């Protein structure tokens, strides 16, 4: 009835690619080890590389799952291609969404929330003011930025309007 009973995953036995237990268990052990590794590296607080390390480990784990558990290594290349494309597009979404990260922090800080990060924003405002002097000092933006800084400290209400003026 079937010639698959003795198949070891070679193509001459038909279309099914049978995973040898050795590879299944080996991949699983690697996944468990990598999980332990990511917990360990996170416990070392390797800021600012912690996120990068965690994502590299997660991607290695993801590749192991996709290539072996999901058979992509032995599957038709087209299936792998469309699966890869979804990650490319997911990456594009995240990238485009993050283009303006940190761009509006001075304006947010100027709104004057009373919170512990305000001091950090004040420093950033100061830096932005200094930057403005260097970049477009001749347009008079520097004074605006410095005013914004002062306003953020006392009452931020007028500052967003000024920022819009730029």
């Amino acid at each position, binding site marked *: 009835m079937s010639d698959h009973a003795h198949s070891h995953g070679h193509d001459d036995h038909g279309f099914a690619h*049978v995973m040898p237990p050795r590879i299944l268990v080996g991949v699983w052990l690697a996944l468990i080890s990598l*999980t332990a590794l990511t917990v360990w590296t996170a416990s070392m607080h390797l800021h600012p590389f912690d996120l990068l390390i965690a994502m590299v480990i997660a991607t290695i784990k993801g590749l192991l799952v996709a290539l072996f558990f999901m058979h992509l290594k032995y599957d038709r290349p087209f299936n792998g291609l469309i699966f890869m494309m979804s990650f490319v597009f997911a990456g594009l979404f995240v990238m485009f969404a993050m283009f303006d990260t940190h761009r509006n*922090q001075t304006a947010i800080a100027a709104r004057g929330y009373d919170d512990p990060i305000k001091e950090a924003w004040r420093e950033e405002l100061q830096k932005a003011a200094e930057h403005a002097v260097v970049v477009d000092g001749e347009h008079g933006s520097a004074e605006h930025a410095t005013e914004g800084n002062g306003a953020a400290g006392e009452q931020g209400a007028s500052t967003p309007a000024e920022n819009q003026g730029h």
Partner: protein
Amino acid sequence: MTTTTTAGAAQHVAHDDHGDHHHDPTLAHHFDTHEQQFDAGKLGIWIFLVTEILFFSGLFCAYSIWRANHTEVFVYAHHYLDTKWGAINTVVLLVSSLTAAWAVRSAQLGDKKNLVRNIVLTLVCAFGFLGIKSIEYTAKYQHGTMPGNYFDPHPEAVLITTDNYNTVVGEAGELAREELAHEMPGFPAEGELTDGQKELVHQRAAEIYAKSDKIPPAVATFFSIYFFMTGLHGFHVVAGIIAFFWVLRRARRGDFTPTYFGAVDYTALYWHLVDLIWIYLFPLLYLIS
């Protein structure tokens, strides 16, 4: 129609009124070969998995934007999650992925006994995952660390941190109890409390909370993204359980043969994707520093 891709038909020799060609009940009329049938189904499931990745990518976008703009929220709030449970659940899902992959192997070899065994093991792990998740969700509910507008932590459960939210001093409730036990002779440092003593702890915890480093203003966003990402993932685990019960029933009935095991393979592929997403969720939610 004499052709059916389902079930019982696989075991019995189907009546073939046509008689003009060999008729296999596990092969649908519109396919030439089993391989063609399998490949068509497989392409379908891969396209479905693509839509799943794009579905989740919206939440990964939100996560990235919030974390980039408010790192302090994520550094502070991740202390509320228990890395131990997250790691155990990662291992539970990895075990289930192994058994799912092994189920596919058993189906390809026509090994019904091991096929059923591996599907059952996968289901056990899936329920284990949900059980651990429910322990975590219950704790969040009891502490009041819920998403969005429902974020209203009990003073006792608030985590007091120093060092720019990096180091946890302790739960306000525990700190309050230590202080009270130190000040008032007879106040129990451990064990059960009377209602009056609980009230004292509650008040002291609120005082400690008020005078310590304030928590970041938008902590609720962390719990929103946490509940949405793990909730959507948990929903997929439930869907996987339903799918595997269906595959289990068919496997018991003997539907699957070495040339007809698509349903096992496709369900396993979906299950590996659920595992794959958790592989990213675990470090992104539990391992922040």
